[in-house]
């Protein structure tokens, strides 16, 4: 009897334990997983073949507010600008790196994974318009592409400057630039960069643009993109003749030596961090800008 009781107790306890041992199949189809979907258009197919397949870069052009700062008022791109802008971005940005590094491996590894396009410019509350942003080494935002034209050399140069500026941020976010760069012109950085008087010539203080005076991170991005888009010859000329109307700025030894010091750090950084010859890259960018303008 004693055993029977114990036996029954055991059976009941076993039942309790087993009863809840329910196997669940974990193959439920989660609705909505995998993001937005729509019927693929010829543009989507072209982008897949030109950007996603070779470089795993998603060129996102359809409206998605969540990709942007909500305080910005924007509109989506016009469809017929998407392919020309992408073609030109490939030409003036990806192709020069491919040529300099030998093949497409470098860009396959080091490109941001998403480029988000906005049709309109991004006007901020202080009245400044933002042309582009880079985020966390992974994403570049480009604004104002609806008014882009490859026949307009100014716009092409601006686009080249923008993408190389943002891409410098991405490279810096992946491998930091030497700390020595911050110490070349430590006193030149100012929050007032957008309201500098014309006689406060940035070139004579060791900066290529006023925006470069915002902070060292922007400084190196501006320097790299300015040198790439201007080309070596024009950059060197501008260095010695920055503002003819201000005699002080001609052959200004301070500005020249500071910018040469920064240039050396940049060239060393590209060589040491990424094994790239900066001057070859500069030449390749020049060729490609020429090609885009004569497409």
């Amino acid at each position, binding site marked *: 009897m004693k055993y029977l009781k114990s036996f029954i107790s055991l059976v*009941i306890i076993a039942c*309790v334990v087993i009863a809840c041992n329910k196997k669940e199949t974990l193959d439920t189809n989660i*609705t909505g997983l995998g993001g937005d979907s729509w019927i693929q*258009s010829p543009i989507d197919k072209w982008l897949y073949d030109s950007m996603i397949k070779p470089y795993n870069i998603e060129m996102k052009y359809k409206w998605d*507010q969540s990709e942007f700062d909500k305080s910005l008022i*924007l509109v989506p791109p016009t*469809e017929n600008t998407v392919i020309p802008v992408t073609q030109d971005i490939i030409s003036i940005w990806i192709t020069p790196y491919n040529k300099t590094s030998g093949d497409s491996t470098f860009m396959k590894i080091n490109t941001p994974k998403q480029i988000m396009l906005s049709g309109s*410019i991004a006007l901020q509350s202080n009245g400044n318009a933002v042309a582009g942003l880079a985020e966390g080494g992974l994403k570049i935002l480009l604004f104002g592409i609806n008014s882009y034209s490859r026949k307009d050399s100014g716009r092409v140069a601006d686009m080249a400057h923008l993408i190389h500026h943002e891409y410098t941020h991405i490279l810096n976010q992946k491998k930091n630039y030497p700390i020595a760069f911050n110490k070349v012109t430590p006193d030149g950085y100012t929050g007032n960069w957008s309201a500098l008087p014309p006689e406060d010539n940035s070139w004579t203080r060791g900066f290529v643009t006023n925006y470069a005076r915002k902070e060292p991170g922007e400084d190196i991005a501006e320097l790299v993109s300015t040198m790439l888009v201007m080309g070596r010859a024009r950059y060197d000329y501008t260095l010695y003749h920055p503002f003819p109307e201000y005699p002080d700025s001609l052959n200004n030894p301070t500005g020249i030596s500071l910018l040469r010091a920064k240039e050396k750090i940049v060239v060393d950084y590209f060589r040491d961090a990424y094994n790239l010859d900066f001057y070859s890259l500069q030449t390749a960018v020049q060729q490609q800008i020429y090609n885009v303008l004569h497409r």
Partner: protein
Amino acid sequence: MIKYLVYILLVAMVVTSCKKDLHSSVFDQSADQRLNKVLADYQSILVAAPYGWVAKVVPNPEQNNNVYAFWFKFNDSNRVVSRWQNQPSLSSSYRLKALQQPELIFDTYTYLHLLADPEQKVPGAQLGTGLKSDFELEIISGSADSFVLKGKYNGSDITMSRAAAKDTSGAIVLPGYLLAGNYKSTSVRTGYKTTQAAGIIANTWKFDDVKAANPLKFAGTVSIDYSDLGGSGWQYNIFVKDNTTKDVTITINAVMQSQIKEGSFKILDQSYDPASGRIYIKTFYTNSAGADRVNEEILLRQ
């Protein structure tokens, strides 16, 4: 006794532990599946309209009375053809998406975006904000005949009504605005030196041209330039209830109201003939300097 209680408890556990339908939903399908079905239903309604939809768009309705008319034709592969004013039709993309609400998003640029464009693409738009219009629209309700939509960020009021064959080309006509269209206007404005009672006429202004009567957000109401002073932003707002009435209600817009002597505007005479589309208006106001003005205007439907 305790022993029995323990046994009863154990048996009760055995019996209840396997009750499985605690997790089953009162619905057949999950919330996401039901939401997707709603979206699919909306899409099929949008696509089903053979002549597309006429859309009435009121950007920033809290501060704006103007209405913009568009024509849209949706297909089942996320494409939409748009028409606006006298522009050629334009193809772009759209999609339906479930966010906080089911949404209709015009996700690449088309005429609708001109109103929202921060680069000032339409008259009255502000740099940086445009007209505060929307192209990401929450679907409040939708049926085979009409959709009610609400702009997600600026609260634009948008209604779409099923279009007829005549809407697929030519001017886009919003339903419910009988007076909308172009009018040949003949007006004589009389400026008195002081009061009308004193009777000394200082000047008269004659106007003879074609004017547009444009729909306002108020149902059945259109705005048309006041005499020759449309350039100053002065407008009549004219309302007619239906096609059988000969009575129109005439008021003046806020710009005009703010620039004349307060409360001085009055209608001296008015008539409307629905058959010929002739509107006759005779009105009076006193200007800010205290001089009386009388405007007599005939509007003939083109």
